[in-house]
């Protein structure tokens, strides 16, 4: 049993360790050339820190401390391996202290980000690796967050690391001409992590707070690492603006609330201000070719800044969607644009646009949007059919409950089944 002071010390140690772990790991991967070996060594240093720091206090330079211990462990491991394989040289190279400058640490972390989010890895593997190595979650925590059995997650991580080593996925910051494309891939992975937490795909929690927070942390890290990349700025802006509504997104029973039903006084103003500023920064850096994440964040900012749903600047929202379509034309973007048009020009105009979109039959919100617009047009039977189509697809429980309520409102005839 820890006393109060010891507990405080242990918590302090844990926080520092958590913050530094990914940086140490990143440097060790560069130095050793092996994710597995680096993880082993970093883990050893972390355990030692958690043993001695609560007792002796956190050292002045915790990263330096951890790196020295981890390096020593890595050398031991390589020596042991080298004796078997008969090659001592590698271990010696490790003893050469690599530069510990802030730039070197930043570059190491960037290499780790681009390796974990390499397009040759499946999206599932990228998400798992990013949470494990960059965000520093334990395998069990990653498994819980993604609702996957721990053994499955362990296997997925092992396979991903094996592919990095055996297929020769480089540990390197992409060259300038490839950077924008690769960064878009990194952003997609981080957005997926956030979104998986923000709108848990299936199950009974609408918001899986852990993953949303990890997504935000990763987005902040990307801005810290690449403060002039519009994609990084736009991604963080988008996440902050979406997350600013977290407290207002559900009612007291945990049911999801639509934008127009939310109590805007509960939106997080500090997050909105930070998000809007980042949108400005992103727009200034993309005078010619708009960045997809910056534009999505601009749309979120239109909503965040409107004093009420009725006062939403729909003209601006629709214009931003038009811009977004020039760089990111997908059926879902078209659906969201149609919903905005319905608010400005009425449900008939919106429905005409929705019905012209192909390829969304498997997307529940396509049917839910149709249901809503048909209901507003007084076509209750057709609305009920659309809601049923939405309910037949994957939704989390609170969202499904909400649609069932809407279905019931379509009239007694529609609840027969």
């Amino acid at each position, binding site marked *: 049993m820890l006393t109060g002071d010891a507990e405080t010390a242990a918590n302090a140690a844990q926080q520092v360790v958590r913050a530094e772990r990914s940086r140490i790991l990143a440097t060790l991967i560069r130095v050793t050339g092996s994710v597995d070996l680096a993880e082993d060594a970093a883990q050893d240093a972390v355990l030692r820190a958690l043993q001695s720091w609560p007792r002796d206090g956190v050292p002045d330079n915790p990263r330096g401390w951890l790196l020295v211990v981890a390096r020593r462990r890595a050398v031991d491991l390589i020596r042991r391996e080298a004796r078997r394989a008969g090659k001592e040289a590698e271990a010696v190279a490790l003893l050469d202290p690599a530069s510990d400058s802030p730039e070197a640490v930043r570059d190491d972390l960037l290499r780790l980000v681009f390796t974990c989010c*390499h397009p*040759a890895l499946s999206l599932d593997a990228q998400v798992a690796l990013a949470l494990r190595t960059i965000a520093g979650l334990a395998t069990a925590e990653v498994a819980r967050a993604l609702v996957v059995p721990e053994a499955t997650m362990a296997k997925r991580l092992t396979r991903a690391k094996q592919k990095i080593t*055996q*297929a*020769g*996925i*480089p540990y*390197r910051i992409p060259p300038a001409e490839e950077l924008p494309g690769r960064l878009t891939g990194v952003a997609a992975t981080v957005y997926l992590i956030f979104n998986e937490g923000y709108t848990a795909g299936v199950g009974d929690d609408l918001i899986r707070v852990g993953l949303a927070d990890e997504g935000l942390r990763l987005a902040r890290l990307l801005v810290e690492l690449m403060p002039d990349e519009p994609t990084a700025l736009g991604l963080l802006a988008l996440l902050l603006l979406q997350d600013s509504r977290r407290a207002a997104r559900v009612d007291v029973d945990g049911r999801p609330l639509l934008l127009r039903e939310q109590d805007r006084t509960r939106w997080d103003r500090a997050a909105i201000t930070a998000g809007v500023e980042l949108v400005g920064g992103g727009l200034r850096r993309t005078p010619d070719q708009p960045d997809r994440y910056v534009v999505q964040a601009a749309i979120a900012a239109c909503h965040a800044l409107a004093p009420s749903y009725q006062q939403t600047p729909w003209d601006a929202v629709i214009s931003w969607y038009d811009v977004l379509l020039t760089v990111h034309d997908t059926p879902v973007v078209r659906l969201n644009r149609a919903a905005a048009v319905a608010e400005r020009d009425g449900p008939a105009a919106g429905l005409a646009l929705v019905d012209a979109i192909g390829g969304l039959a498997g997307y529940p919100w396509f049917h839910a949007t149709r249901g809503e617009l048909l209901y507003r047009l007084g076509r209750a039977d057709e609305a009920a059919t659309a809601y049923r189509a939405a309910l037949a697809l994957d939704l989390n429980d609170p969202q499904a409950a909400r649609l069932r309520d809407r279905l019931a409102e379509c009239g007694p005839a529609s609840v027969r089944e």
Partner: protein
Amino acid sequence: MPTYIALTYTADVDWSSPEQADEMAEYREFGAAARAVIRGGSALYPTATATTVRVSGGKGGDVLTTDGPYAETKEALTGFYLLECADLDEAVATVAAMPAAWNGAVEVRPVIPL
């Protein structure tokens, strides 16, 4: 430097026939451009010429041969290259210049050094 095998999957054509001359010329062009990393490779005769061999009952057992490729797929294994590249990025960039990449698909696999 790691070695990769690039397996080309395309329509099951006969590379030795005159109709394929244009495409073969494209491959020769690719081969010249990627000379620095290519360590070997060949085009394969069509899958109709393939024989699949199995030995039943363990080593030394009966040799069974079947006419045709191991797997019947819409796109067939029609050739391979051995590439020596700095890393997967270089291998992918190399493979992306093979005609098979737009006429079908190319599978890249690291080779275990023996």
